[in-house]
């Protein structure tokens, strides 16, 4: 079975590969009138490696989140393949796909709506274990929850709190803890830092980097924050109108624009010169 394969992947072999994926949305007919098909993703290929981060940047509506939903087959691609450890996910039966999905996790921007507000943290964290590891004793589940909370630096005494009693950064820690509980190998981080303050962004980014080093996790970091993409990624892919239009190291993709000012912050001002040309529409 796919998940029983040796975790020690060859560094040159991708853990997850997206091959020529296309996703069309066919809108419902509106009072009998046909509407045109929307191409959200067109012929996209990319690879994720263990212990590495690929940043996917692009404007709103460029297809980043649609692609993210295709990877664990939450959306069935119209064409192309998703290969996890070399196996095409579309060919797997439902039971095997469930075991694969525990290793590929999506973490969303809006942590408040990603977590059930009626449940306590303990119940939220126990849920994936109950679904994927049925038969575990309550004691084992409690122990695993405590370990996961410790890894994401959440105090154990907060187990009885509910999501809306936590800050945005703390809720993102809960979402990350949920992935760790199932020993996920691939994290698809869809704008996970966008809704956070600068300090909380730094804290969550540091946590993700530490966990990546410790567990050799592969990250697909979807963002429109070019500074964070440049800082966290090993490779950057620029997406526009459903296609990947540029790929390379952060240094290659972002033109360095050092201005002569003493303040690092003032050097940080939004400038077209640091934005990849592929991100700026031709009509501007």
């Amino acid at each position, binding site marked *: 079975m796919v998940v029983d394969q040796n975790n020690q992947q060859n560094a040159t072999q991708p853990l997850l590969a997206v091959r020529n994926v296309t996703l069309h949305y066919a809108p419902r007919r509106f009072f009998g009138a046909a509407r045109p098909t929307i191409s959200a993703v067109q012929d996209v290929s990319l690879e994720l490696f263990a212990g590495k981060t690929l940043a996917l940047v692009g404007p709103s509506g460029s297809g980043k989140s649609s692609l993210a939903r295709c990877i664990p087959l939450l959306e069935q691609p119209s064409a192309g393949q998703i290969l996890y450890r070399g196996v095409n996910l579309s060919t797997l039966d439902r039971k095997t796909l469930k075991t694969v999905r525990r290793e590929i996790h999506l973490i969303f921007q809006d942590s408040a709506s990603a977590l059930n507000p009626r449940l306590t943290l303990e119940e939220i964290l126990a849920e994936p274990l109950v679904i994927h590891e049925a038969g575990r004793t309550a004691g084992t589940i409690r122990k695993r929850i405590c370990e996961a909370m410790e890894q994401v630096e959440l105090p154990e005494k907060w187990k009885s709190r509910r999501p809306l009693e936590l800050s945005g950064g703390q809720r993102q820690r809960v979402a990350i803890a949920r992935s760790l509980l199932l020993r996920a190998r691939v994290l698809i981080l869809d704008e996970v830092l966008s809704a956070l303050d600068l300090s909380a962004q730094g804290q969550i980014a540091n946590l993700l980097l530490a966990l990546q080093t410790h567990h050799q996790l592969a990250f697909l970091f979807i963002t429109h924050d070019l500074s964070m993409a440049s800082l966290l990624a090993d490779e950057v892919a620029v997406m526009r109108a459903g296609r990947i239009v540029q790929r390379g190291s952060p240094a290659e993709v972002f033109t360095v624009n050092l201005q002569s000012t003493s303040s690092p912050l003032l050097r940080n001002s*939004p400038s077209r010169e640091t934005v990849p040309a592929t991100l700026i529409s031709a009509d501007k």
Partner: protein
Amino acid sequence: MQALLQASGLHVQYPGSQGKAIHALNGACLELRQGEVLGLLGESGSGKSTIAKTLLRLLPATAQLTGDRIEFQGRDLLKLREQEMQKVRGAQIAMIWQDPGQALNPVMKVGDQVTEVMLAHRGWNSRRCRDESEILLGRVQLENPERRIYDAYPHQLSGGQQQRVAIAQSLACEPSLVIADEPTSSLDPETEDEILHLLRAFTAQRKVSLLLITHDPKILIGLASRVAVMYGGRVIEEGPLEQVFQRPNHPYTQALLNCVPPPPGEPKPKSQMGLPTIPGSALDPESVSTGCAFAPRCSQRMEICEVRRPFPVDVEDTSRVECFLHGG
């Protein structure tokens, strides 16, 4: 420059859990001058949005507001009756909200939503209000050759276009003050750039004062002339942007600015990639501190910081800071 708005000693409390009160504002003071762009900077929960709602007296009924005064164009807004306040909102002080998708009425044409503001305040007939709205929508660069933007519903527009409608709505009555609460936080960088450019152009052309609320210092560069930094429901430092950003006085301002990531294109080796953060967690709004609210997280904390709150002191004649390190 003449003061347009002076607010002092603003306290706002919400009912919290188990009978405790949530202290959203703890004696906040704010001054905005005629025609200036003031950036209001701070983390979530620092009281930025509460101060905006307080200035417009749009707080929920459960909130308790006490304050010395909110003087706007010679009138104390705290003393106005609700009917008088309705004449101020939209006409003299306008608001641009963070999420234009929620701020606009989903079942009303966007053009009619701009016209509605004019009908309420300008005393023009509906024909003239409609014509002026169309002109205004064109000025915020909302043009579509295939379909009139005026007749579009909010869901038919992108986030950037919706925010342009909100800007047109806020300028409909040529107010003296526009409050923009995180107007670009839900937009991608390209659209953010366009909206900031638009705000910059309008404030310069029409001499409108702008209170720009944000948690991201980068947004303020090239737009704000002065910055006020909030923490724990108080403005703890304020001064000209260049001065505050290059020589921050308060340890919180220093820590916050230190968290700004370097510009794209300056990658660091992974071993040195730890991002700077502010130690500790944000202030618990249910706790009341007799000392400086930032003291528990401050690396330069002294004994007195936990005993009493520092007084505001002037620094370099142009800035003001609340910190014992500067004699507060």
